[in-house]
């Protein structure tokens, strides 16, 4: 009886492991596919063979070469990385707060970025600074995102409970939101459209420097999150249980908040506040891998985030082409029903 049970458990564990591996392969293939499609499809579509040719012969000079290397490749990479980082950030915060409706912007990151960008885009401040740097909105976004992050993290050192911190983050969001509403009210009409479009996110216009920063900084952060997925698993049971299992809560909490906010801040500064990915993709990953084990979910959510974001960017570009739609509209419009569908199909509670 006991041996039978052990065998049964072993088979079941094996089955689950196989499922996870299969899902990884499928997602990996999908990511590659959607990336290639993103390179090939656009306002002018090229045959796949030509695109691949240009991709592997970077020294050639042609129109296609310019489009692929200056526009489509940076954008594709930005989508892949941006989506992955937002998903990782959301996953981290969902685990830390043990709350399924938490996303990367819950601590006010996007509001901080939006506020600073509003300052430069809606006021005369921007005009003077444009001469200084072409990365004006990116730098403003970064200052805003990280400014809010440091305020929240320093408050976090003082408050004991996660729920309190959540409310603090929400309040920060409202405060920043109030200021940028006032700025919007006072701004000139023409400027508002540009700002509103920025505030709905876009992966267009990424420069190679930005891609480099995304790759190095974000890669390091995601890597270290993966390495810390063991204590992150202990957090599934809550901070108190994690502490009694030997996790040094203070340090780890600081790490979670910093890593999650840095990732979200990085993406937001460059692409604007892309909604929904960070909130929904962790659930999609959890449901398709069928586990809450963060050793699976950290890479899993990254992969899923990359795919979903790339796909949404493709739709945003192509659906009403040549008009490009804001990516946040697409992520929510298509992502929402998918999450609801997955939840209903599994009949599972969060």
């Amino acid at each position, binding site marked *: 009886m006991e041996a039978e049970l052990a065998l*049964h458990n072993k088979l079941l564990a094996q089955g689950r492991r196989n499922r996870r591996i299969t899902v990884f392969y499928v997602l990996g293939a999908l990511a590659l596919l959607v990336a290639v499609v993103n390179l090939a499809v656009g306002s002018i579509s090229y045959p796949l063979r030509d695109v691949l040719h240009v991709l592997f012969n970077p020294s050639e000079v042609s129109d296609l070469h310019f489009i692929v290397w200056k526009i489509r490749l940076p954008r594709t990479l930005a989508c892949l990385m941006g989506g992955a980082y937002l998903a990782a950030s959301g996953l981290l915060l969902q685990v830390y707060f043990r709350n399924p409706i938490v996303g990367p912007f819950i601590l006010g990151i996007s509001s901080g970025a939006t506020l600073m960008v509003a300052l430069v885009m809606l006021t005369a401040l921007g005009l003077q600074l444009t001469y200084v740097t072409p990365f004006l909105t990116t730098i403003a976004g970064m200052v805003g995102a990280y400014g809010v992050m440091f305020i929240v993290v320093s408050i976090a050192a003082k408050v004991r409970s996660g729920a309190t911190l959540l409310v603090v983050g929400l309040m920060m969001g409202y405060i920043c939101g109030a200021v940028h509403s006032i700025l919007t009210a006072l701004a000139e009409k023409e400027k508002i459209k540009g700002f509103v479009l920025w505030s709905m996110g876009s992966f267009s216009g990424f420069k190679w420097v930005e891609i480099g920063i995304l790759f190095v900084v974000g890669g390091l952060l995601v890597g270290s999150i993966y*390495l810390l997925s063991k204590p992150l698993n202990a957090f599934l049971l809550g901070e108190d249980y994690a502490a009694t299992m030997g996790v040094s809560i203070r340090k780890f909490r600081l790490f979670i908040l910093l890593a999650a906010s840095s990732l979200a801040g990085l993406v937001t500064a460059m692409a604007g506040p892309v909604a929904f990915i960070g909130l929904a993709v962790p659930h999609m990953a959890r449901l398709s891998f069928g586990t809450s*084990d963060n050793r699976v979910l950290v890479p899993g959510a990254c992969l899923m985030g990359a795919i979903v974001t790339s796909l949404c960017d493709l739709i945003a570009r192509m659906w009403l082409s040549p008009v490009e739609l804001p990516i946040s509209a697409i992520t929510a419009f298509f992502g929402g029903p998918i999450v609801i569908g997955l939840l209903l199909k599994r009949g599972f509670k969060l």
Partner: protein
Amino acid sequence: MTTPFLECRKLSVGYKKAVLRDLNFSAGRGRFIAVLGPNGVGKTTLLRCLSQRLKPLGGEIFLQGKNLQSYRPLELARILSVVMTDKAAPPLLSVYEFVALGRHPHTGFLGKLTDIDEARVGDALRSVRAEALADRFIDQLSDGERQKVVLARALAQDPELTLLDEPTAHLDLKHRMEVMGILRSLCSQRNLTVIAAIHDVDVAAKVADLVLSLKGGTVASFGRPEETLTSGSVASLYDFERASFSNLLGGVEIRGDGSQGKAFVLSRQDSGALAYRFLAKKGYQLSGGILDPADLDAHVGRALGARLFLWDGAAPPEALYDEALADLSEASLVVDGVPESGAAPADGLSHRLLDAARERGLKVIRLGSPGDVSPLASALSANA
């Protein structure tokens, strides 16, 4: 003298302000220590302090002779595990994975389970008899099943000391007894030391080696339940007004509020015990006799606050009879539970009292076979 496994010296615990102060107690390895006390007395705070989650406001805790505060978190996690009231049930986590989280302090980088870890997880599941639950998802279990699994997680941590905060709250009787039985046998078989905040004083009396009673911010008593849990000490611990604890019976009895008047129970040798409880429940104030002081009926009656007429067979019975008769005359209900074969001298007195009751026109109800309260039940419901 050897150092005790766990020792608290002049311990004060609380958040900023002390909730409990001047706690002194120590316990050896393998003991089951129940922490009793009214709600809000600080049981949970004490447990948090013992688990290093809260720094003592004063005094010291020694675990295996070493100050608790000097343990590193990981070092402590290898010998101490905790079961909290928090209903941690993450979605999409199998019972096996959940229990395996308990191996956290023992596993290496990324938490890969070795054969030893797997064996420990298996042991833990077996010792709470939850092997069959291994593949289920943790959030799909019933309260009782989950509590066993939560316990298994604490055991998988391979602790020498486990702290539990109300481990059987919200569980049905079966699971309550099962969980307590498991803890009990872990103490004796694995030499695990258990400290558990427990609500039910009767459960504590039955499972604990030592009872720490907390009242009014400090220790009311500490020692074996057989000695410290008297009817008086328990009554003052919980400020009982209409209830009382009987150590001998191992339970708490709730007295009638007297709203239905007085009932007089005549019985001997266990025949009246259930009638006493039944009548208390219906709201009667109780009297009874004629009983040997060692009769079970006398113990139950006493726990229910009955006025008892006891006779050891030696003293002259007439004075007792007169007193009992006076009391009986005020009763609105007389219960006849005297054994049929009643040849004992006490039964003679009881029969005389019954005759007197009938003479006075009092309502007398004869119990069915010894202890059977159904005639009483139908008489009372007919009344209502």
